[in-house]
Protein backbone atom coordinates (compact mmCIF):
# COMPACT_ATOMS: atom_id res chain seq x y z
CA UNK A 1 0.00 0.00 0.00
CA UNK A 2 1.16 3.46 -0.81
CA UNK A 3 1.48 6.06 1.87
CA UNK A 4 0.60 8.76 -0.55
CA UNK A 5 -3.01 9.26 -1.48
CA UNK A 6 -3.04 13.02 -2.03
CA UNK A 7 -3.98 14.86 -5.20
CA UNK A 8 -1.55 15.11 -8.04
CA UNK A 9 0.80 18.05 -8.14
CA UNK A 10 0.11 20.96 -10.36
CA UNK A 11 -0.24 20.19 -13.97
CA UNK A 12 2.99 20.76 -15.78
CA UNK A 13 3.16 19.77 -19.40
CA UNK A 14 6.91 19.52 -19.41
CA UNK A 15 7.12 17.10 -16.51
CA UNK A 16 3.90 15.08 -17.03
CA UNK A 17 4.16 11.58 -18.42
CA UNK A 18 1.54 9.39 -20.04
CA UNK A 19 0.08 8.43 -16.71
CA UNK A 20 -0.52 12.05 -15.86
CA UNK A 21 2.12 12.20 -13.23
CA UNK A 22 5.42 13.98 -13.64
CA UNK A 23 8.16 11.58 -13.90
CA UNK A 24 10.20 13.14 -11.18
CA UNK A 25 7.32 13.54 -8.77
CA UNK A 26 5.47 10.29 -9.41
CA UNK A 27 5.44 8.10 -6.35
CA UNK A 28 7.07 4.82 -6.70
CA UNK A 29 6.38 1.61 -4.93
CA UNK A 30 9.01 -0.52 -3.46
CA UNK A 31 8.74 -3.14 -6.12
CA UNK A 32 8.72 -0.61 -8.94
CA UNK A 33 12.18 -0.40 -10.48
CA UNK A 34 13.54 1.69 -13.21
CA UNK A 35 14.24 -0.60 -16.17
CA UNK A 36 17.72 -0.14 -17.58
CA UNK A 37 18.04 1.65 -20.90
CA UNK A 38 14.35 2.14 -21.25
CA UNK A 39 14.25 5.86 -21.99
CA UNK A 40 12.23 5.72 -25.24
CA UNK A 41 10.16 2.67 -24.25
CA UNK A 42 9.05 4.30 -21.03
CA UNK A 43 7.41 7.04 -22.94
CA UNK A 44 5.06 4.72 -24.95
CA UNK A 45 4.33 1.63 -22.76
CA UNK A 46 2.81 1.17 -19.28
CA UNK A 47 3.81 -1.69 -17.11
CA UNK A 48 1.22 -3.96 -15.36
CA UNK A 49 2.30 -2.72 -12.02
CA UNK A 50 1.39 0.83 -12.92
CA UNK A 51 -2.06 -0.36 -13.98
CA UNK A 52 -2.66 -1.83 -10.56
CA UNK A 53 -1.60 1.36 -9.02
CA UNK A 54 -4.05 3.29 -11.13
CA UNK A 55 -6.82 0.85 -10.31
CA UNK A 56 -6.19 1.24 -6.64
CA UNK A 57 -6.11 4.93 -7.03
CA UNK A 58 -9.42 4.91 -8.80
CA UNK A 59 -10.90 2.65 -6.22
CA UNK A 60 -9.74 5.01 -3.56
CA UNK A 61 -11.23 7.91 -5.52
CA UNK A 62 -14.54 6.07 -5.88
CA UNK A 63 -14.48 5.26 -2.20
CA UNK A 64 -13.89 8.90 -1.49
CA UNK A 65 -16.73 9.96 -3.74
CA UNK A 66 -18.94 7.30 -2.20
CA UNK A 67 -18.16 8.62 1.26
CA UNK A 68 -18.95 12.13 0.21
CA UNK A 69 -22.18 11.02 -1.43
CA UNK A 70 -23.12 9.01 1.61
CA UNK A 71 -22.46 12.00 3.81
CA UNK A 72 -24.61 14.16 1.58
CA UNK A 73 -27.28 11.49 1.49
CA UNK A 74 -27.29 11.17 5.24
CA UNK A 75 -27.49 14.92 5.52
CA UNK A 76 -30.37 15.09 3.08
CA UNK A 77 -32.12 12.26 4.79
CA UNK A 78 -31.60 13.87 8.17
CA UNK A 79 -32.88 17.17 6.90
CA UNK A 80 -35.85 15.40 5.35
CA UNK A 81 -36.64 13.64 8.59
CA UNK A 82 -36.30 16.88 10.49
CA UNK A 83 -38.57 18.69 8.02
CA UNK A 84 -41.03 15.85 8.18
CA UNK A 85 -41.09 16.06 11.94
CA UNK A 86 -41.49 19.82 11.95
CA UNK A 87 -44.16 19.65 9.28
CA UNK A 88 -46.04 17.07 11.24
CA UNK A 89 -45.89 19.18 14.37
CA UNK A 90 -47.07 22.20 12.46
CA UNK A 91 -49.82 20.23 10.82
CA UNK A 92 -50.98 18.99 14.19
CA UNK A 93 -50.84 22.55 15.48
CA UNK A 94 -52.89 23.75 12.55
CA UNK A 95 -55.30 20.95 13.10
CA UNK A 96 -55.75 21.89 16.76
CA UNK A 97 -56.22 25.45 15.80
CA UNK A 98 -58.78 24.51 13.20
CA UNK A 99 -60.61 22.38 15.71
CA UNK A 100 -60.71 25.28 18.16
CA UNK A 101 -61.95 27.59 15.48
CA UNK A 102 -64.56 25.08 14.48
CA UNK A 103 -65.67 24.83 18.10
CA UNK A 104 -65.82 28.62 18.36
CA UNK A 105 -67.71 28.81 15.12
CA UNK A 106 -70.15 26.25 16.39
CA UNK A 107 -70.64 28.23 19.60
CA UNK A 108 -71.10 31.42 17.67
CA UNK A 109 -73.53 29.72 15.39
CA UNK A 110 -75.57 28.48 18.33
CA UNK A 111 -75.41 31.94 19.89
CA UNK A 112 -76.49 33.47 16.63
CA UNK A 113 -79.33 31.01 16.45
CA UNK A 114 -80.43 31.93 19.97
CA UNK A 115 -80.17 35.64 19.25
CA UNK A 116 -82.05 35.18 16.04
CA UNK A 117 -84.81 33.33 17.82
CA UNK A 118 -84.97 36.15 20.38
CA UNK A 119 -84.95 38.75 17.63
CA UNK A 120 -87.73 36.94 15.86
CA UNK A 121 -89.72 36.83 19.07
CA UNK A 122 -89.20 40.56 19.52
CA UNK A 123 -90.16 41.20 15.93
CA UNK A 124 -93.30 39.17 16.36
CA UNK A 125 -94.10 41.04 19.56
CA UNK A 126 -93.48 44.33 17.81
CA UNK A 127 -95.74 43.32 14.98
CA UNK A 128 -98.45 42.41 17.45
CA UNK A 129 -97.95 45.66 19.33
CA UNK A 130 -98.07 47.60 16.09
CA UNK A 131 -101.38 45.99 15.25
CA UNK A 132 -102.70 46.82 18.70
CA UNK A 133 -101.35 50.34 18.47
CA UNK A 134 -102.94 50.80 15.09
CA UNK A 135 -106.25 49.68 16.49
CA UNK A 136 -105.72 51.92 19.49
CA UNK A 137 -105.00 54.85 17.22
CA UNK A 138 -108.18 54.24 15.30
CA UNK A 139 -110.08 53.88 18.56
CA UNK A 140 -108.45 57.03 19.88
CA UNK A 141 -109.47 58.92 16.77
CA UNK A 142 -113.01 57.70 17.21
CA UNK A 143 -112.91 58.58 20.88
CA UNK A 144 -111.59 62.03 20.07
CA UNK A 145 -114.44 62.45 17.66
CA UNK A 146 -116.89 61.26 20.28
CA UNK A 147 -115.33 63.53 22.87
CA UNK A 148 -115.54 66.46 20.49
CA UNK A 149 -119.19 65.73 19.82
CA UNK A 150 -119.93 65.36 23.49
CA UNK A 151 -118.04 68.52 24.32
CA UNK A 152 -119.91 70.43 21.68
CA UNK A 153 -123.11 69.13 23.17
CA UNK A 154 -121.81 70.06 26.61
CA UNK A 155 -121.12 73.59 25.39
CA UNK A 156 -124.62 73.86 24.04
CA UNK A 157 -126.09 72.59 27.29
CA UNK A 158 -123.86 74.89 29.35
CA UNK A 159 -124.96 77.81 27.23
CA UNK A 160 -128.61 76.82 27.57
CA UNK A 161 -128.10 76.46 31.29
CA UNK A 162 -126.54 79.91 31.49
CA UNK A 163 -129.38 81.38 29.46
CA UNK A 164 -131.95 79.66 31.67
CA UNK A 165 -130.12 80.86 34.76
CA UNK A 166 -130.19 84.40 33.37
CA UNK A 167 -133.91 84.00 32.74
CA UNK A 168 -134.39 82.51 36.18
CA UNK A 169 -132.54 85.39 37.83
CA UNK A 170 -134.68 87.87 35.95
CA UNK A 171 -137.86 86.00 36.87
CA UNK A 172 -136.67 85.90 40.46
CA UNK A 173 -136.26 89.64 40.24
CA UNK A 174 -139.71 90.09 38.72
CA UNK A 175 -141.21 87.73 41.27
CA UNK A 176 -139.41 89.54 44.07
CA UNK A 177 -140.79 92.84 42.81
CA UNK A 178 -144.31 91.49 42.73
CA UNK A 179 -143.89 89.94 46.17
CA UNK A 180 -142.86 93.34 47.45
CA UNK A 181 -145.79 94.88 45.54
CA UNK A 182 -148.16 92.33 47.11
CA UNK A 183 -146.85 93.00 50.60
CA UNK A 184 -147.18 96.72 50.00
CA UNK A 185 -150.76 96.22 48.84
CA UNK A 186 -151.53 94.09 51.88
CA UNK A 187 -150.12 96.81 54.06
CA UNK A 188 -152.18 99.38 52.17
CA UNK A 189 -155.39 97.36 52.63
CA UNK A 190 -154.59 96.84 56.27
CA UNK A 191 -154.04 100.53 56.79
CA UNK A 192 -157.23 101.27 54.89
CA UNK A 193 -159.20 98.73 56.95
CA UNK A 194 -157.86 100.21 60.12
CA UNK A 195 -158.67 103.70 58.85
CA UNK A 196 -155.04 104.68 59.01
CA UNK A 197 -153.43 107.24 56.79
CA UNK A 198 -152.79 105.32 53.59
CA UNK A 199 -150.89 107.95 51.70
CA UNK A 200 -147.49 106.60 52.57
CA UNK A 201 -148.54 103.02 52.06
CA UNK A 202 -150.07 103.87 48.74
CA UNK A 203 -146.94 105.62 47.49
CA UNK A 204 -144.80 102.70 48.54
CA UNK A 205 -147.08 100.18 46.95
CA UNK A 206 -147.41 102.26 43.85
CA UNK A 207 -143.66 102.58 43.47
CA UNK A 208 -142.89 98.96 44.14
CA UNK A 209 -145.65 97.69 41.91
CA UNK A 210 -144.56 100.05 39.18
CA UNK A 211 -141.03 98.72 39.52
CA UNK A 212 -142.39 95.17 39.41
CA UNK A 213 -144.29 95.97 36.26
CA UNK A 214 -141.16 97.52 34.81
CA UNK A 215 -139.21 94.42 35.67
CA UNK A 216 -141.87 92.29 34.03
CA UNK A 217 -141.81 94.42 30.94
CA UNK A 218 -138.05 94.21 30.91
CA UNK A 219 -138.25 90.46 31.22
CA UNK A 220 -140.83 90.20 28.47
CA UNK A 221 -138.63 92.43 26.36
CA UNK A 222 -135.68 90.11 26.88
CA UNK A 223 -137.72 86.94 26.55
CA UNK A 224 -140.71 87.62 24.35
CA UNK A 225 -141.82 83.99 24.48
CA UNK A 226 -141.81 83.96 28.25
Amino acid at each position, binding site marked *: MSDYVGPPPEDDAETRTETGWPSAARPRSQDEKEPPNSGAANETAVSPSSRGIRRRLRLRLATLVLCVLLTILIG*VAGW*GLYAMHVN*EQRAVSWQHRAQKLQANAAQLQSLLDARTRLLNQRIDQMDRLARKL*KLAQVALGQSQGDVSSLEERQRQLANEKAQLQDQQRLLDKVAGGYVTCKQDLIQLLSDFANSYDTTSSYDTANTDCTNADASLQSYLGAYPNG
Partner: protein
Amino acid sequence: MLHAALTHLASARRVGLFLAGFTLVIALEAGCGGLASAPPSQPPEVVRPAVHRLNPQVDQVAATPVPQLISNSLRRKAEEMVVRVRNINCEGIATGSGFALDPHTLLTNRHVLAGASQLEVSTWDGHDYQVSTAEVGALVDLGIATVDGALPRAASTYAEPSAGEGVTVVGFPLGGPLTFSSGRIVDFVDGVSLGVPGKVMRLTANVEPGNSGGPVLDRRGRVVGIVYAIELATGYGLAIPLDTLRTLTRAGGFQGVPACGSG
Protein backbone atom coordinates in the same frame (compact mmCIF):
# COMPACT_ATOMS: atom_id res chain seq x y z
CA MET B 1 -6.46 -2.19 -19.06
CA LEU B 2 -9.39 -0.86 -21.00
CA HIS B 3 -11.50 -3.73 -19.75
CA ALA B 4 -10.56 -3.04 -16.19
CA ALA B 5 -11.39 0.60 -16.61
CA LEU B 6 -14.73 -0.25 -18.14
CA THR B 7 -15.41 -2.74 -15.39
CA HIS B 8 -14.46 -0.20 -12.86
CA LEU B 9 -16.63 2.37 -14.54
CA ALA B 10 -19.57 -0.03 -14.65
CA SER B 11 -19.12 -0.77 -11.01
CA ALA B 12 -18.95 2.92 -10.23
CA ARG B 13 -22.03 3.52 -12.33
CA ARG B 14 -23.98 0.89 -10.45
CA VAL B 15 -22.96 2.42 -7.23
CA GLY B 16 -24.04 5.81 -8.52
CA LEU B 17 -27.38 4.46 -9.69
CA PHE B 18 -27.84 2.77 -6.37
CA LEU B 19 -27.05 5.97 -4.59
CA ALA B 20 -29.37 7.98 -6.80
CA GLY B 21 -32.20 5.53 -6.24
CA PHE B 22 -31.56 5.48 -2.55
CA THR B 23 -31.53 9.25 -2.48
CA LEU B 24 -34.79 9.39 -4.39
CA VAL B 25 -36.45 6.95 -2.02
CA ILE B 26 -35.28 8.89 1.00
CA ALA B 27 -36.36 12.16 -0.52
CA LEU B 28 -39.76 10.82 -1.40
CA GLU B 29 -40.19 9.36 2.03
CA ALA B 30 -39.03 12.54 3.68
CA GLY B 31 -41.24 14.67 1.46
CA CYS B 32 -44.40 12.60 1.44
CA GLY B 33 -44.30 10.56 4.57
CA GLY B 34 -44.83 13.59 6.83
CA LEU B 35 -47.66 15.23 4.93
CA ALA B 36 -50.54 16.26 7.12
CA SER B 37 -54.06 15.45 6.13
CA ALA B 38 -55.37 17.80 3.48
CA PRO B 39 -57.94 20.42 4.44
CA PRO B 40 -61.43 20.04 3.09
CA SER B 41 -61.61 21.07 -0.50
CA GLN B 42 -64.62 23.36 0.10
CA PRO B 43 -65.10 25.87 2.88
CA PRO B 44 -67.70 24.94 5.47
CA GLU B 45 -71.15 26.05 4.50
CA VAL B 46 -72.36 29.05 6.48
CA VAL B 47 -76.05 28.75 7.27
CA ARG B 48 -77.50 32.10 8.22
CA PRO B 49 -80.57 31.78 10.40
CA ALA B 50 -83.64 33.35 8.96
CA VAL B 51 -84.83 36.62 10.53
CA HIS B 52 -88.50 37.54 10.47
CA ARG B 53 -89.53 40.67 8.70
CA LEU B 54 -91.04 43.62 10.47
CA ASN B 55 -94.63 44.16 9.65
CA PRO B 56 -95.11 47.33 7.57
CA GLN B 57 -97.61 48.41 10.18
CA VAL B 58 -94.72 49.06 12.50
CA ASP B 59 -93.40 51.71 10.13
CA GLN B 60 -96.84 53.11 9.62
CA VAL B 61 -97.52 53.32 13.32
CA ALA B 62 -94.11 54.81 13.99
CA ALA B 63 -94.61 57.39 11.27
CA THR B 64 -98.07 58.34 12.47
CA PRO B 65 -97.84 61.35 14.73
CA VAL B 66 -99.41 60.96 18.10
CA PRO B 67 -102.70 62.81 17.93
CA GLN B 68 -102.89 65.76 20.23
CA LEU B 69 -105.42 65.22 22.89
CA ILE B 70 -108.20 67.71 23.06
CA SER B 71 -107.42 68.24 26.70
CA ASN B 72 -103.91 69.41 25.78
CA SER B 73 -104.88 71.81 23.03
CA LEU B 74 -104.54 75.55 23.31
CA ARG B 75 -108.23 75.86 22.63
CA ARG B 76 -109.04 73.73 25.63
CA LYS B 77 -106.66 75.71 27.80
CA ALA B 78 -108.31 78.92 26.69
CA GLU B 79 -111.74 77.47 27.33
CA GLU B 80 -110.77 76.46 30.81
CA MET B 81 -109.28 79.80 31.81
CA VAL B 82 -112.14 81.98 30.55
CA VAL B 83 -115.34 82.41 32.57
CA ARG B 84 -118.72 83.96 32.03
CA VAL B 85 -119.62 86.63 34.58
CA ARG B 86 -123.28 87.29 35.45
CA ASN B 87 -123.96 90.57 37.13
CA ILE B 88 -127.32 90.73 38.86
CA ASN B 89 -128.05 94.33 39.69
CA CYS B 90 -130.90 96.66 40.29
CA GLU B 91 -131.57 97.07 36.61
CA GLY B 92 -131.63 93.41 35.75
CA ILE B 93 -128.87 91.19 34.55
CA ALA B 94 -125.66 91.94 32.65
CA THR B 95 -123.09 89.50 31.42
CA GLY B 96 -119.44 89.76 30.63
CA SER B 97 -116.29 87.69 30.46
CA GLY B 98 -113.25 87.19 32.64
CA PHE B 99 -110.30 84.89 33.07
CA ALA B 100 -108.62 83.14 35.94
CA LEU B 101 -105.48 84.69 37.29
CA ASP B 102 -105.10 81.89 39.78
CA PRO B 103 -107.48 79.15 40.96
CA HIS B 104 -109.45 81.54 43.17
CA THR B 105 -109.01 84.93 41.49
CA LEU B 106 -110.35 86.19 38.23
CA LEU B 107 -109.79 89.40 36.28
CA THR B 108 -112.47 91.24 34.34
CA ASN B 109 -113.58 94.80 33.71
CA ARG B 110 -114.81 97.21 36.27
CA HIS B 111 -117.96 97.87 34.27
CA VAL B 112 -118.71 94.14 34.28
CA LEU B 113 -118.77 94.13 38.07
CA ALA B 114 -120.22 97.58 38.61
CA GLY B 115 -123.55 97.85 40.46
CA ALA B 116 -123.77 94.14 41.16
CA SER B 117 -125.90 92.93 43.99
CA GLN B 118 -124.87 89.42 43.15
CA LEU B 119 -122.10 88.04 40.96
CA GLU B 120 -122.02 84.56 39.49
CA VAL B 121 -119.37 82.90 37.39
CA SER B 122 -119.86 80.06 34.95
CA THR B 123 -117.31 78.03 33.03
CA TRP B 124 -117.56 76.79 29.46
CA ASP B 125 -118.77 73.38 30.60
CA GLY B 126 -121.52 74.65 32.89
CA HIS B 127 -119.85 74.74 36.28
CA ASP B 128 -120.97 77.64 38.48
CA TYR B 129 -119.04 79.60 41.10
CA GLN B 130 -120.22 82.25 43.52
CA VAL B 131 -118.14 85.38 43.80
CA SER B 132 -117.23 86.04 47.40
CA THR B 133 -115.39 89.37 47.10
CA ALA B 134 -114.86 91.85 44.31
CA GLU B 135 -112.91 95.05 43.79
CA VAL B 136 -112.38 97.38 40.89
CA GLY B 137 -109.47 99.48 39.74
CA ALA B 138 -109.60 103.13 40.69
CA LEU B 139 -107.92 104.38 37.51
CA VAL B 140 -108.46 101.64 35.01
CA ASP B 141 -111.36 99.53 33.79
CA LEU B 142 -110.22 96.49 35.72
CA GLY B 143 -112.15 94.32 38.15
CA ILE B 144 -110.83 91.57 40.31
CA ALA B 145 -112.95 88.98 42.09
CA THR B 146 -112.38 85.94 44.23
CA VAL B 147 -114.56 82.89 43.89
CA ASP B 148 -115.57 80.05 46.12
CA GLY B 149 -113.98 76.90 44.78
CA ALA B 150 -111.14 76.42 42.39
CA LEU B 151 -111.22 77.60 38.81
CA PRO B 152 -110.06 75.00 36.29
CA ARG B 153 -106.99 76.70 34.89
CA ALA B 154 -104.97 79.84 35.53
CA ALA B 155 -103.76 81.98 32.67
CA SER B 156 -100.17 82.64 31.74
CA THR B 157 -99.38 86.20 30.80
CA TYR B 158 -97.06 87.97 28.39
CA ALA B 159 -96.52 91.70 28.67
CA GLU B 160 -94.70 92.57 25.46
CA PRO B 161 -96.92 92.03 22.44
CA SER B 162 -96.12 93.95 19.28
CA ALA B 163 -98.25 95.56 16.58
CA GLY B 164 -99.17 93.16 13.80
CA GLU B 165 -99.01 90.15 16.05
CA GLY B 166 -101.81 87.64 15.67
CA VAL B 167 -104.16 87.45 18.61
CA THR B 168 -107.38 85.74 19.60
CA VAL B 169 -110.16 87.25 21.65
CA VAL B 170 -111.98 84.72 23.79
CA GLY B 171 -115.23 85.43 25.61
CA PHE B 172 -118.99 85.12 25.87
CA PRO B 173 -120.32 87.78 23.49
CA LEU B 174 -123.94 88.76 24.09
CA GLY B 175 -124.11 86.33 26.96
CA GLY B 176 -124.03 83.44 24.53
CA PRO B 177 -121.65 80.52 24.18
CA LEU B 178 -117.88 80.83 24.38
CA THR B 179 -116.38 82.07 21.14
CA PHE B 180 -112.92 82.56 19.69
CA SER B 181 -112.31 85.52 17.43
CA SER B 182 -108.97 85.78 15.66
CA GLY B 183 -107.33 88.97 14.47
CA ARG B 184 -104.18 90.96 14.94
CA ILE B 185 -102.97 93.90 16.93
CA VAL B 186 -103.40 97.01 14.82
CA ASP B 187 -101.42 99.38 16.99
CA PHE B 188 -101.01 100.86 20.43
CA VAL B 189 -102.64 104.24 20.91
CA ASP B 190 -103.00 106.74 23.70
CA GLY B 191 -106.13 105.71 25.57
CA VAL B 192 -107.04 109.01 27.21
CA SER B 193 -109.71 109.68 24.61
CA LEU B 194 -110.81 106.05 24.90
CA GLY B 195 -111.32 106.08 28.67
CA VAL B 196 -107.97 104.69 29.78
CA PRO B 197 -105.12 106.90 31.03
CA GLY B 198 -102.47 104.87 29.30
CA LYS B 199 -101.73 102.93 26.15
CA VAL B 200 -104.55 100.96 24.57
CA MET B 201 -104.33 98.11 22.11
CA ARG B 202 -106.52 98.17 19.01
CA LEU B 203 -107.52 94.85 17.51
CA THR B 204 -109.03 93.63 14.28
CA ALA B 205 -110.62 90.69 16.05
CA ASN B 206 -114.39 90.84 16.27
CA VAL B 207 -115.44 92.20 19.66
CA GLU B 208 -119.03 92.45 20.86
CA PRO B 209 -120.77 93.33 24.10
CA GLY B 210 -120.19 90.46 26.46
CA ASN B 211 -116.54 90.12 25.39
CA SER B 212 -115.71 92.75 28.00
CA GLY B 213 -113.27 91.41 30.54
CA GLY B 214 -112.22 88.56 28.26
CA PRO B 215 -108.57 87.92 27.53
CA VAL B 216 -106.61 88.73 24.38
CA LEU B 217 -104.38 85.72 23.72
CA ASP B 218 -101.27 85.53 21.57
CA ARG B 219 -100.49 82.55 19.38
CA ARG B 220 -99.05 80.65 22.32
CA GLY B 221 -102.14 81.11 24.45
CA ARG B 222 -100.68 83.76 26.73
CA VAL B 223 -102.78 86.67 27.89
CA VAL B 224 -101.52 89.97 26.45
CA GLY B 225 -104.48 92.20 27.31
CA ILE B 226 -108.08 92.56 28.44
CA VAL B 227 -110.90 93.53 26.10
CA TYR B 228 -112.88 96.46 27.39
CA ALA B 229 -114.64 98.30 24.56
CA ILE B 230 -115.25 98.76 20.86
CA GLU B 231 -114.05 101.81 18.98
CA LEU B 232 -117.23 102.98 17.29
CA ALA B 233 -115.44 105.00 14.62
CA THR B 234 -113.38 102.11 13.30
CA GLY B 235 -115.08 99.03 14.73
CA TYR B 236 -111.76 97.92 16.21
CA GLY B 237 -111.84 96.10 19.47
CA LEU B 238 -110.06 97.87 22.30
CA ALA B 239 -108.01 96.11 24.88
CA ILE B 240 -105.86 97.22 27.77
CA PRO B 241 -102.33 95.82 27.63
CA LEU B 242 -101.02 94.11 30.72
CA ASP B 243 -98.25 96.65 31.33
CA THR B 244 -100.82 99.47 31.31
CA LEU B 245 -102.94 97.52 33.76
CA ARG B 246 -99.99 97.04 36.08
CA THR B 247 -98.95 100.66 35.89
CA LEU B 248 -102.42 102.00 36.57
CA THR B 249 -103.14 99.44 39.26
CA ARG B 250 -99.93 100.39 41.08
CA ALA B 251 -100.80 104.04 40.68
CA GLY B 252 -104.44 103.95 41.71
CA GLY B 253 -104.97 100.70 43.50
CA PHE B 254 -108.35 99.08 43.97
CA GLN B 255 -111.62 100.18 45.46
CA GLY B 256 -115.00 98.66 46.22
CA VAL B 257 -117.52 97.82 43.53
CA PRO B 258 -119.75 100.82 42.79
CA ALA B 259 -123.34 100.38 43.96
CA CYS B 260 -126.22 100.04 41.54
CA GLY B 261 -127.31 103.35 40.11
CA SER B 262 -124.20 105.17 41.25
CA GLY B 263 -122.78 105.28 37.75
